[in-house]
């Protein structure tokens, strides 16, 4: 069937209107993504539709992003009635086969992994008038964020900053692939369909990035984009909740005749531990790419973080770009004075420091001796090309844990994750307009909570010949441990996760049988990808970084292990490529294809302030109950068609009353009874006078007591959001508990307020 018919969208394609840099037509017509989510695993099929509308044969080259947790396990191209299936081969051999095929006038397709989240497809010798449909099959994991799952599908490659020393050594082709040509708009659009199913019914789906249509049926949900074709200029982000969050579980699938693969997930529960003081250095990306809504999100993130600190903590704020600036010479104790200085500083930070030199400020921080448990909180969109160098630096300082907030519409997910993995921390992602309080609190729980070390596994019933991850990082309070193991069949297996916490050793056990594995293609691909990623990251730490990764000498044994895994499971890696060749019987090697480098769209919000428009958040739920996923600034929409409107970002970021209140909390946890406070809680002072008169303390302290109680009531009035304010509430209650005065006629301050000032 001709592509035009398959797309059924000929009017929208506009092919031939847009040209590549050398004036030729863009041969990519459209991109289609089909995702099937089952609990925490997704299978994604990516289709790219090409047509050569020129009079000469062409070679198309397209670099595009994929999710950082993706395993690419299938590549094929259909041209007319012929199907070319590509196979995995070593990178050099695959390239030689491709080069040879094109030189001979034949047809070939090649898929390379430039970064774990950037692929480059070369489609050679597409003859005049020919149409091709490229299909790429990938499997990936959905990340748990609290009790929801997050599906992130990147659609474009944001411009990256290449540090000067790397630019001098980077291989020209690598630079070209990770920084493809950019356009404000591209002629090819996106169609997306996500089918969601789980062991329990889907409760709600929120799309924070695009207007979508969600249909619930039979316990599952199907999400499609409202537009017939959507521009590929920002990530697609879905937050999914099931009626019952998927439990810790083990899934067993067949692997050949005698083996099976188990995917096991642990969600260990820990007792609450008192908060320990620490040193926290906030490292804020102030490079040009953060301009607009990203820097605004960074400011809000920081303001909430600052209020989550407690007396006893030390902190500092460092902004970086081409250079870096430190608010304090060295970390200072958290006090009202330092909080005020930081608050003023944060409200004034801008994306005005130029490039993205991330190494220098990290070296500065890590080079200083820390007097307490040191944590670095990096807030960035991650648009750099030297991910490996940064990760290696962080990994070489195990005494400091590094946590990341990935911000923006086209965040470099790989950078945010690899730094967090290397630094023993965690990563959170914030899409513009998304509510951030929950994420900040979750991250702060990890940052300030206890760390459980010496994490290991023991196996009974069967010993796996491959387990990934091989080395388990320290665990934090809300840790989810996912592992894949290759085991013999027909065994009863007992696997135990061990860790050592502040009160001694802990363990959690799961049992499962390997006698009746199911057939499923995602899990073997995920096992292979996870095992390969571990070896790749070990390689990164050992590689001579003064040379480009494409020409650097690699450890032969590590390469052989990657190639073997990649071949066995048909999964793409840094050392292998997918290659497929079709011999054209009457090929003419004298006519070489013209090269067409396909441009990608500039990430939305980049370039000019007027681009910074935002779709209304689109949220649909199986039940009419209000969703805790949706911020107050967002809309709860069931009429999804009406969601397709936009309004300026400035409206979106206006803080809600709780956030306004949060900004007024003092370092000791109390609030001051002043006009700003009264405005935030929409009260007149007159209404609080009877309370003030009852207190036998000085006027200022009385005002602070009453203000703190009223603030607590405001923060806790919505039970769905209680967890978001936990650190502020704890601080306030500690302050009240330490007061010399007691509430008149009551033993509890909050009960006294409820009695004297009943809720309206």
């Amino acid at each position, binding site marked *: 069937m001709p592509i035009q018919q398959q797309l059924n969208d000929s009017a929208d394609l506009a092919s031939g209107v847009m040209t590549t*840099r050398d004036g030729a037509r863009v041969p990519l017509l459209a991109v289609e993504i089909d995702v099937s989510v089952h609990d925490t695993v997704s299978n994604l099929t990516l289709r790219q539709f090409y047509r050569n509308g020129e009079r000469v044969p062409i070679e198309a*080259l397209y670099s595009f992003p994929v999710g950082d947790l993706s395993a690419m396990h299938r590549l094929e191209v259909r041209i007319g009635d012929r199907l070319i299936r590509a196979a995995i081969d070593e990178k*050099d051999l695959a*390239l030689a086969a491709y080069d040879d095929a094109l030189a*001979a006038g034949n047809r070939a397709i090649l898929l390379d992994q430039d970064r774990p989240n950037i692929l480059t497809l070369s489609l050679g010798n597409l003859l005049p008038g020919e149409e091709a449909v490229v299909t790429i099959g990938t499997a990936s994991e959905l990340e748990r964020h609290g009790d929801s799952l997050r599906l992130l599908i990147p659609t474009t490659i944001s411009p990256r900053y290449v540090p000067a020393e790397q630019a001098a050594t980077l291989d*020209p*082709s690598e630079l070209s692939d990770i920084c493809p040509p950019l356009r404000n708009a591209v002629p090819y659009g996106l169609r997306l369909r996500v089918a969601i199913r789980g062991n329990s019914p889907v409760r709600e789906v929120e799309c924070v990035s695009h207007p979508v249509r969600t249909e619930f049926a039979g316990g599952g949900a199907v999400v499609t984009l409202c537009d017939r074709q959507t521009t590929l200029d920002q990530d697609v982000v879905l937050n999914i909740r099931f009626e019952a969050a998927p439990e810790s579980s083990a899934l067993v699938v067949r692997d050949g005749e005698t083996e099976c693969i188990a995917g096991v997930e642990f969600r260990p529960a820990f007792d609450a531990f008192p908060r320990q003081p620490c040193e926290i250095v906030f490292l804020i990306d102030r490079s040009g790419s953060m301009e607009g809504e990203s820097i605004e999100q960074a400011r809000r993130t920081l303001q909430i973080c600052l209020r989550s600190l407690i007396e006893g903590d030390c902190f500092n704020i460092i902004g970086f770009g081409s250079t870096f600036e430190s608010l304090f010479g060295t970390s200072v104790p958290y006090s009202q004075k330092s909080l005020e200085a930081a608050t003023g500083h944060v409200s004034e930070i801008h994306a005005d420091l130029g490039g993205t030199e991330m190494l220098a400020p990290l070296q500065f921080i890590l080079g200083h001796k820390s007097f307490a448990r040191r944590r670095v909180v990096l807030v960035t969109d991650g648009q750099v090309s030297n991910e490996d160098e940064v990760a290696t630096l962080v990994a070489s300082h195990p005494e400091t844990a590094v946590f990341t907030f990935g911000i923006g519409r086209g965040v470099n997910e790989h950078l945010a994750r690899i730094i967090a993995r290397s630094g023993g921390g965690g990563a959170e992602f914030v899409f513009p307009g998304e509510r951030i309080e929950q994420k900040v609190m979750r991250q702060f729980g990890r940052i300030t909570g206890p760390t459980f070390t010496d994490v290991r596994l023991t196996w009974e019933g069967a010993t796996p010949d491959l387990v990934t991850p091989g080395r388990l990082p320290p665990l934090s309070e809300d840790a989810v441990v996912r592992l894949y193991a290759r085991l013999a069949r027909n065994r009863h297996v007992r696997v135990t996760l061990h860790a050592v916490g502040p009160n001694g050793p802990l363990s959690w056990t799961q049992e499962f049988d390997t006698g009746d594995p199911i057939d499923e293609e995602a899990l073997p691909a995920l096992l292979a990808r996870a095992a390969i990623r571990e070896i790749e990251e070990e390689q990164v730490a050992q590689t001579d970084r003064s040379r480009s990764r494409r020409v650097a000498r690699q450890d032969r044994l590590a390469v052989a292990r990657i190639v073997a895994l990649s071949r066995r499971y048909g999964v793409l890696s840094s050392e292998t490529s997918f290659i497929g060749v079709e011999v054209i019987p009457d090929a003419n090697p004298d006519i070489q294809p013209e090269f067409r480098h396909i441009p990608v769209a500039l990430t939305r919000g980049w370039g000019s302030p007027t681009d910074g428009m935002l779709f209304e958040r689109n949220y649909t739920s199986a039940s009419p109950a209000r969703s805790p996923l949706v911020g107050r600034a967002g809309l709860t929409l069931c009429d999804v068609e009406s969601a397709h409107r936009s309004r300026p970002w400035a409206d979106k970021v206006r803080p809600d009353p709780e956030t306004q209140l949060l900004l007024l909390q003092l370092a000791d946890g109390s609030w001051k009874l002043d006009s700003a406070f009264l405005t935030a809680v929409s009260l007149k002072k007159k209404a609080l006078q009877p309370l003030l008169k009852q207190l036998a303390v000085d006027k200022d302290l009385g005002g602070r007591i009453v203000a703190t109680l009223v603030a607590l009531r405001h923060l806790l009035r919505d039970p769905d959001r209680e967890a978001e304010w936990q650190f502020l509430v704890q601080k306030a209650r500690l302050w009240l508990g330490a007061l010399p005065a007691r509430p008149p006629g009551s033993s509890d301050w909050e009960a006294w307020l409820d009695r004297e000032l009943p809720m309206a």
Partner: protein
Amino acid sequence: MTPRRFSITELAQVAGISGRTVRYYVQRGLIPPPDGRGPGRHYGQEHLDRILKLRDLQRTGLSLDLATTALTGRACEPVPDEPIERELVTRLKLGDGLHLEVGPGTPVPTDRQLRDMTRRCRDILEPGNRNPDSGG
């Protein structure tokens, strides 16, 4: 003497670049595709020489576009289609080798201001040759 023959991998190794960059040069017409017909296609000394020349030019700090022009006598790629930024400025000569550009919307300095500016510039640029009137 038998002419040297390389596979794409061998050529990349000898030239100290990646195989993908050899392909990158072929795609952009910076080196010709491999020679010969049938399974015996190969790269040769001419390819290697060109790559080494390109690499040398790039090492001198030349961008790939300029290196291409230097090597082939033609521009690598046409001028990009981004709009050209134009701005009218007023250029004033303050003295030998010293010029001032005033952008739109900024008033042109008075003669007195220009003289003062020239003197200060000279003080900074030629500290050993101070104007006796500068008072410093």
